């Protein structure tokens, strides 16, 4: 390290409203002389104008006009201070509005999290959420700053109670280093120097702790990963690969493998503006030259052949949804991972995690500020490691290709099971839809579904019909007609429909599906708006008259005990999206109407 150099520590701060976070940061900036006289004078003037007894250091931090007007903090702000040994970057996250999005953003680059809480209020739900997010983002150091100790008479008991409560909660988190420090940000106790008001506290003052934390302990120096940012070819004699070492180390002469090609070569030199290096390591930005002319371009990765990342087009990841518009399954997003951008879609939401209880809940999709585990399929292979082992190759963002908004942040847990080639081929180009025909046996469900399928296929649109006969012949041949078996039959039909839906198919499901609860269960597996329930209405008399399969006849003679409409009830939909009356209208007329409904929903040609 050069003489002018210091070590660098990136912090993220989080606190609930009124925990005094701005005051603490203001205090740290003040104590480290990172506040200037002209700035301080402005804050003093404002404090006096507001009639405050002490200068409100928090006023230093609100950067935007709207924040000063509304007295709220809108967005993550970055602050800088340094001590003789170390430079610090603080990502200062507002505690209330959109706190998840903001804290995840701030935490993504942090090595240490400061979670503030109010000594009077104790451990709030919000404080637990902050700890959960720090753990989720893999921050190794968590400092719980118990603030406003001056308002509890600097009582050790108040601090101890909070420490025990929080430590008990934190046992369920993945945080290797958890430290508690009692402070008064307003008075400065235990911020820059040990407080004489709290002689019972044997630990270090906050700044001393931050200055001596051992970082970066989490940097991965084992697994060499070099995502190629650009190929430099200034003239015929030089061809180098520019990039930042994501993890691990590399030396000239070592063998490397290029992904995805699998081609092998050796490092010829590590070239930089300041001369060739004997060794490069994370996170240096360098240029690598190879001894062979192998095909490597931006988005490829250089690795060691005996230490490979997973090469996969399917991921399981914890996803934090950051967009106000909820997640949509079955449409494509852009996924950026290292220097590679691929089309991707979310094929399944395994569960959402409740940040307060850490319980898992099944949901069809994630909404704004939700965190959950998902399966993602990508159009190109990615070279991934679990986030826990390697933040740089274990993280990704999702971008909405239409508005270009960053909609989600993902932390890879594992490479998933790849879906069929069908999935990749139909990937995201077309929006899927599910039309669920329900009605009595003989009402005309399959006839309508087949007619519509023919029309869709003729128009070049991927469509498929699923009906009871088809499924019961194979997938569901183990099932009978009890309520439980019928439930399972419909559940399986819904799952099959979902697989087709995810690949952009229009899925036409023709099932008697007599029970509302079963239909509602299937509906919940699809994004809102993509599942249409079509009630195929026909009187029992007319159905009995049609009786295409002779089932009514068999039922009447006792051959089918719980036949819908006879021995077993049919619960008509209460609010179907579509009603098709097959007694009064012909097939073509009804299919015309269905086509119109699908036009806007599934972007038909």
């Amino acid at each position, binding site marked *: 390290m050069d003489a002018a150099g*210091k070590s660098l520590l990136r912090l993220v701060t989080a606190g609930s409203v009124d925990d005094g976070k701005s005051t603490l940061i203001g205090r740290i900036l003040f104590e480290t002389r990172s506040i200037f006289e002209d700035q301080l004078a402005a804050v003093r003037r404002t404090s006096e104008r507001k009639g405050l007894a002490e200068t409100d250091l928090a006023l230093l931090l609100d950067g935007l006009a709207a924040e000063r007007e509304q007295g709220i903090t809108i967005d993550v702000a970055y602050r800088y201070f340094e001590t003789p040994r170390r430079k610090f970057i603080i990502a200062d996250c507002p505690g209330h509005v959109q706190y998840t999005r903001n804290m995840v953003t701030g935490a993504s680059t942090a090595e240490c999290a400061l979670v503030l809480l109010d000594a009077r209020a104790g451990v709030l739900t919000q404080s637990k959420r902050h700890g959960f997010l720090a753990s989720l983002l893999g921050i190794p150091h968590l400092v719980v700053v118990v603030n406003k100790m001056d308002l509890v008479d600097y009582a050790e008991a108040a601090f101890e109670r909070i420490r025990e409560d929080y430590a008990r909660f934190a046992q369920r988190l993945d945080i290797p280093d958890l430290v508690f420090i009692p402070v008064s940000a307003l008075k400065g106790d235990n911020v820059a120097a040990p407080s004489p008001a709290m002689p019972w506290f044997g630990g270090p003052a906050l700044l001393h702790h931050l200055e001596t934390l051992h970082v970066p302990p989490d940097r991965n*120096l084992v697994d060499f990963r070099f995502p190629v940012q650009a190929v430099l070819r200034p003239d015929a004699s030089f061809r180098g690969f520019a990039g*930042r070492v994501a993890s691990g180390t590399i030396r000239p002469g070592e063998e490397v493998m290029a992904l995805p090609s699998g081609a092998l070569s050796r490092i010829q030199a590590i070239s930089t503006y300041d001369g060739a290096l004997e*060794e490069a390591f994370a996170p*240096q930005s360098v240029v690598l030259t190879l001894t062979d002319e192998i095909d490597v371009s931006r988005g490829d990765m250089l690795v060691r052949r005996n230490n490979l990342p997973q090469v996969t087009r399917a991921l399981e990841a914890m996803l934090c949804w950051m967009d106000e518009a909820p997640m949509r399954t079955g449409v494509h997003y*852009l996924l950026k991972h290292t220097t590679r951008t691929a089309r991707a879609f979310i094929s399944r939401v395994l569960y959402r995690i409740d940040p307060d209880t850490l319980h898992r809940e099944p949901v069809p999709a994630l909404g704004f500020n939700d965190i959950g585990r998902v399966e993602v399929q990508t159009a190109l292979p990615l070279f991934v490691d679990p986030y826990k082992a390697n933040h740089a190759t274990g993280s990704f963002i999702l971008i909405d290709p239409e508005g270009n908004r960053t909609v989600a942040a993902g932390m890879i847990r594992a490479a998933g099971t790849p879906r069929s080639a069908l999935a990749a081929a139909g990937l995201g180009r077309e929006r899927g839809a599910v039309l669920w025909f329900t009605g009595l046996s003989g009402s005309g469900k399959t006839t309508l579904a087949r007619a519509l399928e023919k029309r869709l296929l003729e128009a070049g649109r991927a469509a498929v019909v699923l009906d009871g006969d088809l499924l019961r012949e194979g997938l569901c041949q183990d099932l009978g007609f009890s309520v439980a078996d019928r439930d399972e039959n419909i559940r399986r039909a819904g799952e099959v429909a979902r697989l087709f839906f995810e690949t952009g198919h229009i899925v036409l499901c023709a099932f008697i599906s007599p029970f509302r609860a079963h239909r509602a269960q299937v509906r919940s597996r699809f994004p809102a708006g993509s599942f249409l329930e079509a009630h195929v209405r026909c009187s029992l008399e007319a159905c009995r008259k049609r009786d295409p399969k002779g089932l009514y006849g068999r039922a009447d003679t006792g051959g089918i005990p719980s036949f819908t409409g006879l021995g077993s009830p049919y619960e008509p939909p209460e609010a179907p999206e579509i009603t098709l009356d097959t007694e009064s209208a012909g097939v073509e007329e009804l299919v015309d109407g269905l086509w119109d409904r699908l036009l806007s929903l599934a972007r038909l040609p």
Partner: protein
Amino acid sequence: MSSYLLSHLDLLESEGIHIIREAVAEARNPVMLYSVGKDSSVMVRLAMKAFHPGPIPFPLLHVDTGYKFPEMYEFRDRFCASAGLRLLVEGNSEARAKGTHPGIVGPDACCAQLKTAALLQALAKHGFDMALGGARREEEKSRAKERIFSFRDRFGQWDPKNQRPELWALYNTRMGEGESVRVFPLSNWTEVDIWRYIQREAIPVVPLYFAHERQVIRRKGILIPVTDGQTGPEPVETQRCRFRSLGCVPCTGAVASDAATVEDIIREVASARKSERENRVIDLTGDASMEQKKKEGYF
């Protein structure tokens, strides 16, 4: 066996190079905004390092108000020529022909015409979609909230309440037709980091940064240099001073200083009791003046 330690300057440098390469890899037509100041000098050095041994694969653009210090023009032309850099100089010639001057229309209106409008015109004229700039988050409070890759709409405007979340080192560079992205590779640098890096790398800077005896007048506590015989009602005095940041002659004050070398400046800045932009007349016109300018398209 190496200890694999990197100093904060090494880390800032590596981050800056990574950002510049990402911008160039994903832009259609990138450009680097060059203001002739110390931050620009550092940014150009990072760009050289990013593409070494090749040349910098984009031009530099100086949005010139015509009111810069003569020393800045001299330094600019010499520096760009010696480093073999492609320099474009653009300005709002229409407004300049009309005689737009801070003394006449006020500093804010002058900046709007000669800087903001000129920048937007220049970006449109050349079709630049991604512009690298040397702004730092530490400089000013609204900049503390700006992204490294900062999206601008078709009018070049910044919407501080609707910024894209920016995570890890994964930058969303996507934009639609007519939209643009400003990129700030020095986001995490402070003033003293800039000077330490200038020292470590022996980067040339405009001599105005170093203390000299200069003819000045005092206005609202700011030392205004006397140039071309221009003075106000205030008496002219001789003061040993330097410029902490550089801008246009009418709006840039000097600070009393004895710092004649980079080492002196580092010592001075590290113990400074006033902020870096204390001498900038343009930032003092309103509590939110920088934010307002940025919303309109200013850097």
